[in-house]
């Protein structure tokens, strides 16, 4: 089978949709984890509350993987029958991956900062955990919007 440039570009898009938000989430979850470990060193009873906050920046990685799967399904790589994409089709798929790739990376880190601040709330006023979660969850909006944009574009493309 002849590999086309379009196929390469489409797969590159899928890869970016997975790895960039993945990096962001790994960094973000790590950051909140460090701050949470500091609090738990002094007060082990705060473990479960801080764990919730730590998980928040992890969603971007999942959105990226989801987008990657949609691309793989759309270009037929999942069934083993890669579609013969033209260069322009490949570029379209690549473009559709950009929103979640870039917003996923940056929003995960931004969310981690808000969540790390939330860890500070838990340290001082554990009863206000919900407020800390809400502040961090606001950042989620933009990751969801980027996911939505990427998915809508991918489903709208005519590839076959």
């Amino acid at each position, binding site marked *: 089978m002849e590999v086309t440039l379009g196929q390469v570009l489409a797969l590159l898009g899928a890869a970016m949709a997975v790895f960039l938000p993945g990096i962001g989430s790994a960094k973000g979850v790590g950051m909140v984890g*460090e701050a949470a470990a500091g609090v738990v060193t002094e007060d082990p009873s705060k473990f479960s509350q801080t764990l919730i906050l730590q998980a928040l920046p992890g969603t971007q990685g999942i959105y990226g993987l989801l987008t990657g799967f949609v691309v793989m399904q759309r270009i037929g790589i999942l069934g083993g029958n890669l579609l013969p994409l033209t260069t322009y089709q490949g570029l379209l798929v690549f473009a559709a991956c950009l929103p979640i790739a870039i917003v996923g990376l940056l929003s995960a880190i931004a969310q981690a900062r808000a969540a*790390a601040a939330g860890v500070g709330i838990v340290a001082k006023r554990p009863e206000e955990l919900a407020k800390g979660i809400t502040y961090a969850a606001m950042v989620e909006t933009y990751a969801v919007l980027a996911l939505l944009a990427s998915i809508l574009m991918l489903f709208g493309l005519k590839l076959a």
Partner: protein
Amino acid sequence: MVREQEFLYASGRIRALETKLLSRTIVERILEAQDMDAVMRVLSETDYAPDFEELESIYDFEKALENSMKRTLGVIKESLKDQRVVRFFTLKYDYHNLKVVLKSRILGVEVPENLTTLGEVPVEELLKLSKGEKDVAVPKLMRLAFERAAEVYEETLDPQQVDLILDRALYEELNLLVQDIGHDFLKSYLAALVDLTNIKTMVRLKYMESDLRTLKKSLLPGGSIDLEFFEKMFQEPVPVLIEALAASNYSKVVKDGLENWVSSGSPAVYEKLVDDFLLGMLRKGLYKPFGLETVVGYLGARENELKILRVLMVGKINGISEDMIRERLRDVYA
């Protein structure tokens, strides 16, 4: 340059520790305590309980304060990879020991008193240095300062020169350290500390009718106010100084503090206002989720707490009235 993210773990830990800082209520209760037993009862509810329990006599309270600070420094050191920020706080203890060791040598005292265990250079090494041994594990800058102070003392036979030279050396090293860390928050904090100390030095020397040469030797380096300013103001009366600093950040501290100094003849209120001003700067650490500010703020808050307790304990032990103590009492951090 330090990265904010290196402070994540320490900041989380500090967030939990900040809840154990003395609250205004505790300070009030100590202040209102009828006798030392009542003071000890209040302290037993705080984080200081283990340190005060160990004491044989309440007059040794300084030991308890030192132990509690030592614990704090240990916690922060083990939470940070880069220890330079902690060094910013511990350096002064080493220079304090350096002074004590040199002065003891001058007085011919074998075992120096008033040494602190909060420094990072082992006291044994400092004693070896003072005995003139080669090959001692004392950092180069400190060793040079010690030798210079010893030399000048031998020329002048004035023990005050030891303080002047070692204080200057301490601040020179602090400036180097802060440049090395390269964080704006720490730079502005040190500059304010130096400025406010220089203002105090200048006014004190004016009252002592000292000369310009002593002033030049006593002013510390690294402030945001030029040393020429102080040399010029040295000839003027205090109200002119207050006027000249009216547009600076320190206007309120200088006005209220120095006016009180002029009328009462005591720098106590100025010193309190300076400490409150610096604590206000440090409070940035309270509101920053994580970073160098959080660590510096907490360590500064702990030192401030020791000052509060020192004023309270000395006041209570000597039966000084509540109002007199209150006047000298610093604000709390959180």
